[in-house]
C-alpha cells in the first residue's frame, strides 16, 4: 500500500473505509472495476477479519459468564438491586426493629419457582400493605412452563410449595397465591436472541 492516504486513481482509503461501513461512495462503478480500489478494499476487509479474530480471542479470554469474576460482580450488584418495601418482623425487644426486604421475598418466590422442574419464574408481586403486620397479602406469580410439562399440575405444585415456604420464611398473612402461566418455553436447545417471539406485552 501507499504511504499516502490517496490512491493513484484519486480515491482515498478514508472513502473506502466509509464505503465498507455504509455501502456508499460517490463512484461505485469505478470502485468495482478499479484494481487500486479493490486492493485497498481487500486490505481493509482483511483487517476486519483480523478484528473479528481478535474479538473472539478476547471474548474467549474473558471467560464465561458463569465464572467467578461475574459472580463477584453479581454478588455486589444484589446489594443495589431494588430492595422494595421493608416488611416488619416481630421483635423480641421493643427497642429492636427487624425487617425482611420485599426484594428478598420476591427472590425467594422466584427461586422456588425456578427450582421446580419444568418451570421458570416471571413477574412476581406482593399485593397488599406488607408494611402493616397482619394485613391481608395476595401473591401474584407469573411462570413459564417448559413445553411438555402439564401446566395445571405445575401451577398446583408451585402453589403448594410457595405456601409452605412463605409460612416458614415470612410472617405475612397470605390470603391467596395466584399463579398465571404466561409462557411456554421450548425444551432445551440454545436460544438465539432473534427468537424473541414469545414476548408478552405489558
Amino acid at each position: 500500500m501507499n504511504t499516502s492516504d490517496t490512491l493513484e486513481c484519486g480515491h482515498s482509503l478514508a472513502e473506502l473505509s466509509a464505503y465498507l461501513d455504509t455501502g456508499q461512495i460517490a463512484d461505485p462503478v469505478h470502485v468495482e472495476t478499479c484494481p487500486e480500489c479493490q486492493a485497498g478494499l481487500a486490505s481493509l476487509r482483511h483487517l476486519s477479519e483480523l478484528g473479528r479474530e481478535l474479538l473472539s480471542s478476547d471474548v474467549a479470554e474473558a471467560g464465561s459468564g458463569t465464572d467467578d469474576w461475574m459472580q463477584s460482580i453479581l454478588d455486589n450488584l444484589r446489594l443495589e438491586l431494588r430492595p422494595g418495601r421493608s416488611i416488619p418482623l416481630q421483635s423480641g425487644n421493643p427497642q429492636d426493629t427487624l425487617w425482611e426486604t420485599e426484594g428478598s421475598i420476591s427472590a425467594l418466590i422466584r427461586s422456588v419457582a425456578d427450582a421446580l422442574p419444568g418451570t421458570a419464574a416471571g413477574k412476581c408481586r406482593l399485593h397488599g400493605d406488607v408494611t402493616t403486620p397482619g394485613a391481608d397479602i395476595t401473591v401474584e406469580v407469573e411462570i413459564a412452563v417448559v413445553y411438555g410439562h402439564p401446566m395445571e399440575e405445575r401451577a398446583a405444585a408451585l402453589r403448594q410449595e410457595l405456601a409452605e415456604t412463605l409460612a416458614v420464611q415470612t410472617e405475612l398473612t397470605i390470603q391467596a397465591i395466584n399463579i398465571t402461566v404466561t409462557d411456554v418455553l421450548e425444551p432445551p436447545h440454545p436460544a438465539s436472541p432473534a427468537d424473541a417471539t414469545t414476548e408478552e406485552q405489558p
Partner: protein
Amino acid sequence: MTGSPAAQHQLDLVPDALLAGRAADGDTAAFEALARRHGPLMRATARRLTGSLADADDVVQETLVQAWKQLDGLRDPAAVKGWLLRIVGSRSIDHLRKRRHHADLGTVENAVDPDSRPKNKDPETNAVNSSRIEALKAALAKLPEEQRRCWVLKEFNDQSYEEIALTLNISPASVRGRLARARITLARTMEEWR
C-alpha cells in the same frame, strides 16, 4: 433435573427480549441471566477500551449498575445487547477520565505487556495464527487513543458512526476520519501478516 442447575438452564432458554422485559420489571434473576450471557463480550470490549482487565471488571460492574437503574427507559427490549455495549463504551471512557484525575496514568493504557508482543515470525501455522493476533494487539495499543476507541466500538460492537459519536462526544465526521486513520495504520501494519 432438580435444583438450581435446571433453573439456570431454564433462564438460559429465555430470549433477550423477554429477559430484558422481566428485568425492567424488577426481576433480578432475569437481569443476572442477561449479565451472564453478555458479560464476556462486555468484558472483552471494556478491556480493549481501557487497556486492562482489572479496569474492565470495574467497567462491567458500573455498566450493570447503570443498566439496572435505566432499564425502564429501554424502548426495545430485544436490543438490550447493543444497549449494554453502548453503556460499556461510555463507562470505559469515563473510567479513564476519572483515573487520570486521580493520577497521571496516561502511559498505562498504551503499555504493552512484554509477553503479548509478537515474538518472531515463526512459520508454524499455530504460531502465525496467534502471533498475528498479538501483532494486531500491539498495533492497536500504539494507536492514538481516540482512533483506537473508534476502531474498537466499530469492530467489536458494530456501532454506527452516530452511536460512536455520541459515546465519544465528537462529531460523526470525526468518527469517520479517525476510524479511517486507525484502519489505514492497522492495515499497513498487518499487510505483512496476509
